[in-house]
């Protein structure tokens, strides 16, 4: 059904780049030329044959740090997305199907959480919580699940009033059948593309927190943290900080391209005239 030749070029680029990032993250110890914390040269050496991307503010190999950084970035972003997605979509579907006080209570709570910018709320909470991976994933996942909740509730409410769902209710089907057999298959395509967007958001959000010094703590570093480590070099004309920043942008764009394509592919069931 899926023909590689029919995938548009932007989506293909997105798939290839995303795959490269994922492979780098998985096989980091085997790919990286040097250890993560290993000091191999002078501070901020320029790009060379031995150090393809140069060295960082402590003289560590930037390429190796980038590869290990991919690991941490993707690991946290994937877990946070998984949390926000499962939490948001399950609660959103349940709110749409059950309605009543359950729906009202959850929806008002989500309204409240969304009335404060996510970054501000995260900063407020992180000011009192211990800075570790678990806190980070929980804070990111829970704050972001509000958006998934809104989307999945809206999608499910729309589907829930369709005649075919009414027909199933008239037949006497139970809630489990209605959620999993009638609503879920039809909600999948907007949710899958939202999954991509939520993942991008998680990557950007994590990077921002780390850049502000509130995310991953040294000596470990995700890409955002590496920007922070190397940012002082910029004023001396050393571009080391731009490399991890560009990597974040590249990852986000690739996932965006893939998500865009998935959305277009699945929504145009009927095609159109234009």
């Amino acid at each position, binding site marked *: 059904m899926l023909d590689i030749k029919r995938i548009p070029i932007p989506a293909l680029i997105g798939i290839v780049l995303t795959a490269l990032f994922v492979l780098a993250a998985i096989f980091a110890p085997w790919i990286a030329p040097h250890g993560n914390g290993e000091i191999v040269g002078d501070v901020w050496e320029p790009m060379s044959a031995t150090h393809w991307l140069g060295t960082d503010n402590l003289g560590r190999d930037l390429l190796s740090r980038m590869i290990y950084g991919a690991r941490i970035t993707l690991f946290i972003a994937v877990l946070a997305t998984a949390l926000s997605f499962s939490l948001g979509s399950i609660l959103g579907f349940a709110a749409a199907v059950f309605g009543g006080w359950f729906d009202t209570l959850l929806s008002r709570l989500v*309204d*409240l*959480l969304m*009335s*404060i*910018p*996510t*970054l*501000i*709320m995260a*900063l*407020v*909470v*992180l*000011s*009192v*919580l*211990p800075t570790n991976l678990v806190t980070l994933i929980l804070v990111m996942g829970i704050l972001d699940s509000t958006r998934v909740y809104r989307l999945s509730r809206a999608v499910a409410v729309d589907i829930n009033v369709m005649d075919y769902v009414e027909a199933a209710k008239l037949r006497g089907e139970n809630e489990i059948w209605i959620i999993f057999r009638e609503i879920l298959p039809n909600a999948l395509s907007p949710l899958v593309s939202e999954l991509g967007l939520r993942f*991008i958001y998680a990557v*950007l959000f994590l*990077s*921002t927190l780390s*850049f*502000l*010094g*509130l995310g991953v703590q040294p000596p470990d570093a995700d890409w*955002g943290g590496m*920007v922070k480590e190397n*940012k002082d070099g*910029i*004023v*001396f*004309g050393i*571009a080391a*900080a*731009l490399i991890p*920043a*560009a990597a*974040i*942008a590249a990852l*986000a*764009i690739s996932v*965006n*391209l893939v998500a*865009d394509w998935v959305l277009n592919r699945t929504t145009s069931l009927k095609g159109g005239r234009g």
Partner: protein
Amino acid sequence: MSSPIVKLVAQRVALGILLLLAVSVLIFAGTQILPGDVAQAILGQSATPESLANLREQLGLNQPAYVRYFQWLGGVLTGDLGTAMSSGQDIATSIKGRLWNTLFLAFWAAIVAVPLAIILGLIAVRYRNGWVDKLISGLALASTSFPEFFIGYVLVYFFAVKWQIFPGISTVYDGMPFGERMQAIALPAAALTLVVLAHMMRMTRAAILNVMQSAYVETAELKGLSAFNVIRKHAFPNAIAPIINVVMLNLAYLIVGVVVVEVIFVYPGMGQYLVDHVTKRDVPVVQAVGLIFATVYISLNIIADIAAIVANPRLRHPK
């Protein structure tokens, strides 16, 4: 103005005030009732029992949470934001100048971004599906994928370091001449503009397209109106409300962007102040600044809603 509008606007404002109260509870709860001992978190694991007890006393932690909340809220409403733990300074005094700096920066970014985004959005609609439109939506896709610090440091790298046109660090001080001040904020304002521009443009385009595809625009075309007049007389009056909405939502987005941009350019504003004190775990400062950011954000959202209410002919001229 007829009464249903007044009623709706009043409702919206009342709802906003209620929301603000709820947000203040949330911010307070977020910093006070979360698991873990705040005093312990502030002082670290090596703290002595005496110093912990002292700190608890100083923070008023021995009183029940709701008492502390009402004390705090009462202070906030009378302009007393408390004192910073890390420096012992009055928070309201430290914030005043910084709030002004942040608003100054955000104002100039908005002055550039809003008209630019609307004009580019209009161009994208005019040349819909042409290369200009594709370029604009491509750039929008890219820029929503860029972290703020990427845009910021690229600007610094080229404009401050390579070409040395603008300063890479935005130092401002009281009594600084206007021209110098503008020079200092050029790069952070540009970074902020770029952060919100794409999104605002994309949403403007969608809002106008939505109006352009309605049947009454076809009616206008079939009356023989020129393309310009169709847009001016028929599309524009109906597009104002959605565009104001887009602008307000993006200005709200701008205040998040300001936090990161201020850190990048070491700009003495609210964002940097907040981040600094989160690192120092200075809870009173974080609460105060968090509440101010939330207030601005919620106010912008209320304005957006009110604009939509006022611009709706169905509400302005009830049956």
